């Protein structure tokens, strides 16, 4: 079995702060990480490999050269091979253009029996690239996968809904997007880290993957950023006075009552 896992390197948004003076993001010193849901996607692929050792797991990403660090982390977790799609021609792609590039890369590296991806990346939160890869490759998709079982040429999966779940049966090959309920990602292993350090990560350009250049990059993207900005911060609030928790509680409630908030 051959499995692809689509991953993305993202800034740890929990660490990002806003500069209150300028209202801009402070990204300095913010670590880049393997996107959370993507780690669950990789873990699921590795679990298939644990059960069927002749499985090959290939991680694929699109991004700048420094995304190699994240791919090494994936190799250290147990992936067999890593591919980085990196080219100026791909820069500025929206989800549609990104999917065109990733679909072309996956076609070149494939064919795959299964393609896993994270549900969404924490920087953009769109959840669009997984389904759009599936569409561009003409494959079935299941998003929000929280349980997975392989059953011959089929997968039986649970898809999370807001108020429950669906159980679905889908024929391979297909695209599945993972959420954190699916599993607990493993740590990198020491042999894995040693192997990853020596690994040769493939870097493919737009020409290498043979993608139509009128369908990738900033100019080809159907959506454009018109403006970006920060919301106006609220006026500074008050610090509730009081020497003891009892006084603080009393002062807060008195003020809320005086203003008819409670």
């Amino acid at each position: 079995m051959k499995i692809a896992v689509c991953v993305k390197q993202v800034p740890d948004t929990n660490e990002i702060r806003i500069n209150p003076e300028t209202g801009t993001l402070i990204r300095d010193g913010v670590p880049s990480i393997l996107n959370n849901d993507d780690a669950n996607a990789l873990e699921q692929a590795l679990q298939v490999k644990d059960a069927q050792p002749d499985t090959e797991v290939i991680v694929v990403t699109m991004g700048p050269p420094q995304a190699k660090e994240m791919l090494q982390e994936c190799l250290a977790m147990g992936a067999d091979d890593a591919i980085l799609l990196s080219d100026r021609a791909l820069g500025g792609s929206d989800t549609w253009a990104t999917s065109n590039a990733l679909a072309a890369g996956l076609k070149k590296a494939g064919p795959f029996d299964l393609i896993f991806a994270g549900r969404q990346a924490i920087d953009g939160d769109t959840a669009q690239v997984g389904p759009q890869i599936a569409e561009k490759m003409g494959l079935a998709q299941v998003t929000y996968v929280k349980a997975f079982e392989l059953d011959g040429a089929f997968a039986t999966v649970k898809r999370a809904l807001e108020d429950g779940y669906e159980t679905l049966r889908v024929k391979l090959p297909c695209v599945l997007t993972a959420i954190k309920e699916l599993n607990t990602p493993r740590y990198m292993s020491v042999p894995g880290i040693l192997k990853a350090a020596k690994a040769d990560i493939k870097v493919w350009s737009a020409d290498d993957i043979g993608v139509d250049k009128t369908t990738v990059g900033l100019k080809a993207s159907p959506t454009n950023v018109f403006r970006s900005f920060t919301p106006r911060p609220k006026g500074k609030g008050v610090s509730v006075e009081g020497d003891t928790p009892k006084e603080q509680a009393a002062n807060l409630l008195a003020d809320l009552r005086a203003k008819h908030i409670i």
Partner: protein
Amino acid sequence: MANFEEYKNIWVYTEQRGGRLMPVALELLGEGYRLSRERGEGAKVCAVLVGSEIGYLAEELYAYGADMVYQMDHPLLKNYTTDGYTKVMTDAIKAYKPEIVLFGATHIGRDLAPRIAARLDTGLTADCTRLDINTGNYMKYLTDYTTASSSGLEANDGNKGLKQTRPAFGGNLMATIVTPNTRPQMATVRPGVMEKRERETGASGQLVKVKVELCQSDIQVEVLDVVKEAKELVSLTDADIICSGGRGLGNAEGFELIRRFADKVGGVVGASRAAVDSGWIDQSHQVGQTGTTVKPKIYFACGISGAIQHLAGMQTSDIIVAINKDPEAPMMQLADYAICGDLKKVIPELIQQWDEEEQQ
């Protein structure tokens, strides 16, 4: 480039599950109604109803503002499937050419909309929290609610493109996205953000029964069952008071205190992603960019430092009360009332004195 003249009207995908409309469907009709009037030139707001034997829902859609209902009814559409719903929606969009198509950003909307957008090779903007057509209205929004300058924009520029505003980078950065060269313009919209219209009993509109061409072989995924889980009833979007806990609670037992607090004040329990990720509380309680967006009258943030992805989901609350040991925490800066102290001491006092106040 598409011939834009051919594209008219605003479509709202009015999601139903098991024959019941999702609340976001009515919210989107309200927003679609507003946008259609802002668009002018006779633009209509049209509900798009997909399912099996769901025609009876049309009346409800008219009552909440739909000028028209496009109904796609077929036995194979009884359960949602990506393949079936994508095919009928794409066929209908190609046939009727709406200018704008809106979806609720539910688990189903976020599965369906990207697939349709990819098949139509058009743009899709995820999780919008504000939509504008008129440039003047958009400029007013920038001036009144953001730090952005509206310089370079002209209120009467006649640009009728949809300006789709959404949180990015986990929250505190906002981006307005446009789809200049393709049609339709597509967006998913966060539940709980837009306002539904007052119900108008007896309202009517025009029904279009769309010819559905669908066969079993079009659908690659088989639905074995759909299970409703008896989850704790969490209705964060409707709550007047939310008592939310974060990493500062220290452990799962900390939520017992939050629950007692919420019970006392008649509120609902919320949580930060850190608390959910630590396994202290179910994800259905999560407030923030990846959880639920809330706008209660009072939001108590207890031991929540205020990662921007959390702030993005609650910063429009009427009153924010933060309880935290760290006065420099972003949440303490944002709060209307900041209590610097140990939440395990402050909250029991609030619980006790809340009663005392009532007795006075």
